């Protein structure tokens, strides 16, 4: 075997070795991949050179970018200098790479630091508990990105039933060109989901944005005019109308839209987002949608029956964030990854105290508020970790408890409660006064007769009380 102090012998050894070894530049790009990587990944690893290797970075959605991002070092490598991560690279074509333990080492100073990684079957990991959590979150997110490459919108991350249902519906909607109704309260990301569905199901098709609340029949005609011309002139032409707040659209405009959809049946498609009122009608489970949509009270519901028929072909429901509590850490970290990969800040992970604060906050403005909070936090944080102090004041100062209790008390009887309180005070004072009623009455500032009367009122056997006076 060749030995030496120069780089060539090492290069030859690495080339001969079957171990996957790779290097990441200070800019976060893959600058070296050993032949072992090709064997592990199932394709020529040279194709990954110069691709960004930062968690959450596959902005293009291309499969190779996703593989490059999966090879990224875990959070806090910069601080600790070494890190461990179990990596399961996404499959390319038919090859499914096995999961391998990877060890990362960072060498050099801040500006020129290189990251070297080697993957194998190691079993020496004892990370700090905080980092163990961060690594677990990263692995869950990697798995989610691997399985839902095209539709991996941050708000669909998670392991809850709601997240699974949401992803499945989006997958179906993205695989076929059909009318879609999105139900969710404000800030639930309906527009981004519908836009992604459009891009996947009908790439290149003309998309017209319509703001439902601002429309009347005439304005709707004017907005859709160019598209309607296009449809009239060519039988091959197809368009998609993305309507925000369909349930806020005036009834006449809705009927006009339904008429247009009927006229250009199949060639004009509707992607519509609706608000929380409809979500409640569709609640409590998605399975009841068809039943609830058969109601006749169109106006009360905010939608005309023709449009209900159209969007009931495929409905997507996104529950409020407060009902997807267990997904909050994953969604927040996915949002952070996206912003970190876009170079918005140095923070790579959210510490547990900050995640706890995010979990207990009730999120009245849903996913949009979470997105804004993460944006605020990554801009505020100067280090690698987002802590409580980097979160917006409303979140870090939120203390749950008082409001819900107060609303529940409204069902109690005030008279009964006061009686019980009075009797308890009298009993306690009597005990303190060794059963002396005159003394107890004096301490309570009432007459002895009143004290006795109160005791008699509450006693199951008034006669016995009279005898004991």
């Amino acid at each position, binding site marked *: 075997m060749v030995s030496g102090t120069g780089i060539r012998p090492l290069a030859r050894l690495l080339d001969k070795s079957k171990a996957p070894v790779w290097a990441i530049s200070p800019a976060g790009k893959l600058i070296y991949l050993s032949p072992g990587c090709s064997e592990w990944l199932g394709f020529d690893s040279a194709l990954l050179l110069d691709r960004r290797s930062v968690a959450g970075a596959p902005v293009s959605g291309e499969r190779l970018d996703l593989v490059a991002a999966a090879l990224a070092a875990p959070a806090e490598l910069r601080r600790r200098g070494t890190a461990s991560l179990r990596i399961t690279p996404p499959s390319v074509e038919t090859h499914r790479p096995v999961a391998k333990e990877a060890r990362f080492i960072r060498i050099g100073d801040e500006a020129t630091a290189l990251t070297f990684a080697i993957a194998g079957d190691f079993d020496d990991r004892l990370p700090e*508990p905080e980092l163990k959590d961060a690594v677990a979150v990263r692995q869950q997110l990697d798995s989610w990105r691997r399985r839902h490459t095209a539709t991996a919108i941050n708000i669909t991350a998670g392991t809850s039933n709601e997240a699974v249902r949401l992803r499945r519906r989006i997958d179906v909607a993205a695989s076929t060109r059909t009318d879609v109704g999105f139900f969710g309260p404000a800030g639930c990301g309906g527009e981004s989901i519908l836009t992604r569905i459009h891009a996947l199901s009908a790439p290149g098709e003309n998309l017209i944005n319509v703001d439902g609340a601002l429309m009347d029949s005439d304005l709707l005609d004017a907005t859709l005019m160019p598209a309607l011309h296009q449809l009239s002139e060519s039988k091959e032409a197809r368009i998609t109308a993305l309507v925000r707040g369909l349930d806020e659209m005036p009834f006449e405009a809705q009927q006009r839209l339904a008429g247009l959809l009927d006229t250009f049946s199949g060639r004009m498609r509707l992607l519509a987002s609706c608000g929380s009122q409809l979500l409640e009608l569709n609640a409590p489970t998605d399975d009841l949608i068809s039943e609830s949509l058969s109601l006749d009270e169109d106006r009360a519901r905010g939608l005309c029956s023709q449009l209900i028929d159209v969007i009931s072909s495929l409905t997507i429901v996104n529950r409020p964030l407060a009902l997807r509590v267990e997904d909050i850490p994953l969604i927040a970290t996915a949002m952070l990854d996206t912003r970190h990969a876009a170079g918005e800040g140095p923070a790579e992970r959210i510490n547990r105290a900050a995640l706890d604060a995010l979990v207990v906050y009730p999120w009245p403005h849903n996913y949009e508020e979470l997105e804004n909070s993460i944006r605020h936090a990554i801009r505020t944080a100067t280090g690698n970790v987002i802590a409580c102090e980097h979160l917006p004041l409303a979140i870090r100062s939120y203390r*749950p408890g008082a409001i819900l209790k107060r609303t529940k008390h409204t069902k109690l009887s005030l008279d009964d409660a006061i009686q019980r309180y009075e009797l308890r005070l009298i009993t306690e004072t009597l005990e303190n006064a060794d059963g002396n009623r005159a003394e107890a009455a004096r301490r309570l500032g009432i007459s002895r007769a009143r004290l006795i009367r109160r005791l008699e009122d509450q006693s199951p056997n008034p006669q016995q009380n009279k005898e004991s006076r």
Partner: protein
Amino acid sequence: MNWSLVDPGVIRPWLICEMGTRWLTAVRRFGPEMIPEALVPKVESASRDEILASLNLLEPAVVLWETSRDTLAASCDSLARTAAINPRVLQIIACHQLTHREQLCLTPFPVAAMVHQPEELPRLTPMIHLHFARWTQFID
């Protein structure tokens, strides 16, 4: 909160035994949603001894023990004693940093559920409902 003003029949006590306030905050946030609308959760933080001392007086209740490697033995003892004194108490273990092997040590004891992070609490809602329904069917 003056609890003497509330009808005792609608109070559902939750006792939290922990080092800080992490789980108290979480139960205050999710506890009210984990019991039927008409009932009131009385969430309080207490020491191990205070909880054991008050067990005889407790109506059906939920006790959440935060357990770490250092307090594992004490938690096992508390779990066993609590179940022996008052079987109407539902016991939940909050263990963030226990290894799988350490968690297995707790399984012989009457642990209704183990949670690792606060976001897992809402998952226990059906179990809490059933527990209170079982022990308070004559009260409610």
